[in-house]
């Protein structure tokens, strides 16, 4: 939670990129997003963990392609017109690592307000609590702020 607090402004607002994965809406801190690209052919890596099953070429670097659906118990889905790769930079054990994240749709860059923060319900979800930093009310909906570092590693 501390990392979020740093990025949050005085008014409790945070710049985020809103995206949809499966039926859920996620908000990623805009500071970690490098670029959003159209899907490109991926190369499967035999023996890799399920959520990091392939790699893609992003501007000359071979980066893992993360499909976090598996981590949230969602079934795999084929790419659609709306599918995008969100290239993010996260710190894994202190080193910056670039990862491309599959999103079913990317909406917008917007501000969310932390005074709308909700407690994570103990029941009513089969998500593992350590994958979620918090849940914020946005309009009439709820958005999930995921803990990407934990999800990936």
């Amino acid at each position: 939670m501390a990392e979020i607090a740093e990025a949050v402004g005085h008014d409790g607002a945070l710049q985020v990129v809103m995206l949809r994965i499966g039926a859920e809406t996620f908000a990623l801190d805009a500071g970690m997003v490098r670029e959003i690209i159209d899907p490109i052919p991926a190369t499967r890596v035999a023996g890799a963990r399920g959520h990091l099953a392939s790699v893609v070429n992003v501007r000359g670097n071979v980066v893992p392609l993360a499909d976090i659906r598996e981590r949230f118990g969602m079934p795999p889905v084929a790419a659609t017109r709306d599918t995008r790769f969100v290239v993010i930079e996260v710190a894994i054990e202190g080193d910056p690592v670039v990862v491309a994240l599959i999103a079913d749709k990317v909406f917008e860059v917007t501000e969310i307000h932390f005074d709308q923060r909700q407690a994570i319900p103990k029941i009513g979800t089969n998500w593992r609590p350590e994958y979620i930093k918090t849940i914020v009310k946005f309009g009439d909906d709820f958005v999930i702020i995921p803990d990407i570092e934990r999800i990936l590693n």
Partner: protein
Amino acid sequence: MSSLDPIDVFRTEAAELLDCLEATLLDLGEKPDSGALVDTAFRALHTIKGSGAMFGFDTVAAFTHDFETAFDLVRQGKVPASVELVNVSLSAKDYIRMLIEDPDNTSSIIGDAVLDELRRLVGGVGHASAAAPPAPRTEAAPTGVNGGAALTHEPTQGADAAAGWRIGLVFDPDILRNGTNPLALLDDLRDLGPCEIVPRLDAVPDLAALDPEALTLAWDVTLRGDASREAIEDVFIFVGDEVRLILTPLDAAASPETAPVPACAPASEPERQAVLAPTPQAPVPAEAAGSAPEARPGTRRPEDRPSATVRVEAGRLDELMDRVGELVIAQARLSQLAGLQTDAGIKSISEEIERLSSRLRDTTMGIRMVPIGSLFGRFRRLVHDLSRDLGKPVDFVTEGEDTELDKTMIERLADPLVHLIRNAIDHGIESPAQRGGGKGPTGRIALTAEHVGAQVLVSVRDDGAGLDAARIRAKAEEKGLVAPGTPLTDQQIYQFLFAPGFSTAATISALSGRGVGMDVVKKTIEGLRGSIDIATEPGAGTTVSLRLPLTLAIIEGLLIRVGEGRYVIPLSAVEECVELPALERETRGRDFLNIRGELVPFLRLRTLFEAEGESDPHQKVIVIAAGGVRIGLVADQIIGNHQTVIKSLSKLHADVATFSGATILGDGTAALIIDVGQLVTGGRPERLQEFQEVA
């Protein structure tokens, strides 16, 4: 180079000079009569002393001065450059290095001990006369203009005059550029007694012609009191070359004709050059150094390097290599696209870019190439010391110093080669008494490098007793590495030497015998995508050969297809490709192949990589060699050779051991590079044994 901390500059410079000094001393050990070598060593010392004093390394300067003083007797031919003297000089050189690198933690006790030994060797020449500053080599310099190197004594020698001295001071005009402050020296003179200092302005040119950085002033100093000649000379100890000091006792100076100090003014060009010329030891080498009369061919002073070199941070070169790698990939994509077009203009541009980028790649790789001689030089000292400590006289021969290798490669080769050379001297070469068969008491270690195709072959060859296969085998059986009675070729037996903790040495010496080392050597070499081979002949010696790729950034690969996926196998590991016999298409329990009578086990990559879809009707077997065994890899198709720009895998894929990296293909997709060694052993050494048993 963004940071120009003068201390760092001094350290770099001193390190080079010390390397030069070491090489020269070792040469001197072999050719004690060479005056040129003595001069080179002396010059290196002198420069270290001068710049050491300039950058505040006073202990370095003081020690080097004493060292130089003792060494001067060798230069004058009064003391021969004996082996003992060379050994002590090497220790002295090491001590200077310690003083420079870690001045706070270096005890002067070592230095004193070294100096005592040095003084003892130069024939009991004690402090008194040894403290006299080095006499200049004056024969090369035109007399009357500049005394050459250092302090010119007036012929009017006499007892130290109690009345005082008349001192004529003329500095080298460049002294200010080198950072020396003559006024501070004058202050030091004042400390010796009451001084009357008169500047001489006759050499100062007109204002228009005045170079503010050149010192055109000279001074006449009358020093009263009982200061000794040595005390005065000590003031100028660190500017020895750059000052001409004329000392006349005061009573003698009564004569007006005595010692008019010639002006150092640039009155005429030839004269100016004559003043500049005898200062090749100046810390900032003047251009004149090249034409200095003392310059000798064959010396390796840093000043001798061609001036057109640039020091570049290694990181920048890495970055450049990355960019070029990306360019090569982008160009491959372009030519693939252009191949599909009918437009001749596009095609010709694409070909042009292909030509340019491949030349750019070669040039960039060339920049990173360093001759391996820089590495070989370091081992001379190692061999020298080991041969002394072990009492085994050894000739050390190097060949192919010009062979160029990637810089990173050279750095990482240093440790493995140290191990191999130690082993060769400690285990390979017999003691003089044991050496038979007309070999003579002196052993021979040859370190050679040569290009073999796209690889570099570095080998360490000794003329010792050779490996004892039976003994290695016995040891391997004892350690349970192999079942007794298993049929093994000699080459397979030698591979046990690379097993961790394996040693046949009966006794553990300080150097080797603990069985640590060869496994590390092997790991390092394989980490560099190289291979290691041992050849031996009983009684005639052993050769350890390292085969290394030229560079770490780009490799030649064999591109294969398995199912829908494409993979790269490093071409250096590939031995041959054969078609998979129809009989073997379905697995029959264990998979072997009979290749020219030899059993070769094989792995089905389709199974290993969980490939989907139908397999090709005519699958291929790529036979690879790793860790002394040959195994086959079954692929659906061999696509061909591929210039592979290596990209490392993400940290998140650290758990994937089968692949050592990735590359980007012409169509922009990524392909994985198969880690051959890992595939054979699966990270489990016992797998290798299984394969060995089979083979």
